């Protein structure tokens, strides 16, 4: 009754092609933005920033990046952890080499470096397909992590190979380092995420996005209608890696503050991000964030309910938590293999007809 597009007339092509053609969707998005920008910064504290919002934003951005590659272009990658590492180490090197450089520029440059690396490791996609490609990207995963662990230049020859982020300010607000306020770090990440989400939404609606989707749906057919497969795949690798690189930069600099290659950028990160887009919905920008929210929040909610709420032993709770996460993932895949994004769509369909379904 409330949610329906009847009566919303569009007089221009621009209006017709808007990202959110329905007014209610627009309002909803604006409301979410208002809460995110105007309410949360005032209530956020250390715990919520470190355990909930920063993970959500950085993983959300990484998931979005992977979704561009896997969801839109159909190329499965298990190298996400390594690409996060490339972003993180680029940031570290840039910040320590050019301390005066504006941090926003640093983050964007880190994205560009990652994009270049991504293209190199995307080259096999010209010949290898499907799951074989996924395992081939694992080569990138293991090789890059090994490289960052071994070559002293990357971690400024610190005796342990750990990298630590020095404090950095943007527009006079400290956003990294221990004395940064949670609100400043949060807003910094949020701005990046919103801008890049918007950008992604537009990329996938444009020519490039359509090429990707054509390749995903059937690469031979796409080739026949004049799309160059390797170029489309490599652009997908580049854009996706750029996103993941930016995410890696924020992940290391703003959220964690210190990192160690094997532990922070391991193969489990690659799986985690892949989980996010599968559970959230392949080929959906919103889905990437829903998936990231689910995978990062689920353990915390389970833990807090079981330990805090039900008074369970911490260990038992952890074991139950691992099993429950597994059960939930299988359950979601069985019930809705297209992820939360699809559920959201169904909900919207239902809502249109509510309360008088025909």
């Amino acid at each position, binding site marked *: 009754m409330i949610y329906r597009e009847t009566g919303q007339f569009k007089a221009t092509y621009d209006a017709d092609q808007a990202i959110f053609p329905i007014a209610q969707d627009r309002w909803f998005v604006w409301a979410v933005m208002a809460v995110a920008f105007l309410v949360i910064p005032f209530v956020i504290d250390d715990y919520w920033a470190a355990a909930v919002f920063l993970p959500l934003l950085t993983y959300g951005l990484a998931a979005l990046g992977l979704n561009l590659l896997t969801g839109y272009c159909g190329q499965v990658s298990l190298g996400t952890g390594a690409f996060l590492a490339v972003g993180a180490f680029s940031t570290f090197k840039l910040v320590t080499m050019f301390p005066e450089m504006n941090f926003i520029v640093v983050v964007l440059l880190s994205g560009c470096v990652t994009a270049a690396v991504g293209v190199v490791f995307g080259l096999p996609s010209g010949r290898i397909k499907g799951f074989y490609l996924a395992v081939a990207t694992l080569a990138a995963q293991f090789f890059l992590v090994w490289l960052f662990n071994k070559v002293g230049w990357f971690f400024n020859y610190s005796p342990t190979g*750990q990298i630590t982020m020095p404090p950095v300010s943007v527009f006079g607000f400290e956003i990294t380092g221990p004395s940064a306020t949670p609100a400043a770090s949060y807003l910094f990440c949020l701005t990046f995420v919103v801008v890049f989400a918007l950008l992604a939404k537009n990329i996938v609606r444009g020519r490039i996005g359509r090429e990707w989707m054509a390749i995903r749906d059937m690469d031979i057919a796409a080739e026949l209608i004049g799309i160059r497969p390797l170029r489309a795949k490599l652009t997908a690798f580049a854009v996706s890696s750029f996103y993941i690189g930016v995410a890696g930069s924020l992940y290391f600099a703003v959220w964690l503050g210190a990192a160690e290659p094997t532990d922070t950028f391991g193969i489990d990160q690659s799986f985690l991000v892949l989980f996010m887009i599968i559970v959230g919905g392949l080929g959906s920008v919103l889905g990437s964030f829903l998936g990231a929210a689910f995978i990062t929040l689920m353990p915390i909610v389970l833990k807090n309910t079981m330990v*805090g709420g039900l008074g369970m032993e911490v260990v038992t709770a952890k074991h139950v938590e691992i099993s429950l996460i597994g059960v939930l993932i299988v359950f979601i895949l069985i019930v809705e293999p297209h992820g939360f994004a699809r559920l959201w769509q169904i909900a919207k369909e239902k809502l249109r007809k509510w309360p008088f379904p025909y």
Partner: protein
Amino acid sequence: MILKRMFGTLAAALVAAPLMVSSVSAYELVMPSLDYRTGPYAPNGIPWANGYTDYLTMLNERDGGINGVPIKNVPCETAYNTKQGVECYENVKDTEPSRALMVEPRSTGITYQLIPKASEDEIPIHSMGYGRTSAANGEVFEWIFNFPVTYWDGAAGILKYIGDQEGGLDNLSGKKIALVHHNSAYGKEPIPTLEAAAEKFDYELLLLAVDPPGQEQGATWLQVRREQPDWVIMYGWGVMNQVAIQEAVSIRYPMDHFIGIWWSGSENDVLPAGMAADGYLSAAFHAAGDDFPLHDDIKKYVYDKGLSQGERDRIGEVLYNRGLINAVYSTEAIRTAMEIHGTNEVTPAMVRDGFESLKITEERFKELGLPGFTYPIEITCANHAGPRKVGIQQWDAEAKEWTLITDFYDTMNDIVDPLIEKDSMEYAEENGITPRDCS
């Protein structure tokens, strides 16, 4: 709709959970423990966690806490994972009523992550024999303690033992020493020390990195077999230890020339290799075994009442005792803090002072029921690592026992001290810290 309801429940759970935790009236001493009873390192994390928690439970049962103030032990599961460790830290640090009096991360990775955060939050960190070695410099690392000994001293101590066996450190010249290490921040810690010593004593250092977890080390040990080093030092953790000892047995490397750091010398590490592991050596900073008076108290007050998660016959294992000594250090620091500040309601800042003037004598260890368990310690403003002594223990596969075969001795401070100075000053510079004046 389903989705909305789901998010509703999620939000409710999130909001409700912290509320339910905080319903306390009288003053309590909050001592969080960042356990890892799950994940690949659980076999090591469990005895450690049990030893730590059992001691606190025992104090609560026997003495009603520390000076009559009960201890509130807040466990949090990290699975040895850095991110979960940080989440745990943020979760426990403001626990009512005292806030977390100290944090013991029990993982080098988590320690590195928490050093800047905890310094900012003004919560002392005690990383006992792990973590960042240069935190020994109290002038730079005001809130971080890593007594009684550090990784670098461990390496120097092992070298010294090797020197003794070879008839003097000068005889190391021309010898070949291999370091088999966990390829992580932790495993790479001893490399600068060993390299500095290699220059001084002119031995050949062979570095063999093993990627964690270290399930497959065939190639590593083939290299050992080819190079035939005179001694092998190991910095391993978890499954890497078991596999390394097994492989060393296979290539018939003499066990009494194979020395692990204190994290590579527990029952778990040697048992899978069976009788063949007999004679394997490891560094240690405390004794093993359950024949100290304290263990009797723990059995009486904790196990007889069924208050422990552990098994009775595993009391006294190396890592269990490590948990014990960890808890002893921390509770003694709280006791010291109560003394110097004249109040029983101590805060994290006071406990930091307690750590900084902590002094546990031979006598005091006897009172605590741990005579001869470890060496006396004294922490000062400038020295956060204490006396930094090491002993060597040997595995007796027949009796299934670790026995100390040396006294606790001083390592090579002339090599380690300059390295600590250099690394801590670099840290201070990178992070804009002005070292405080301790004199």
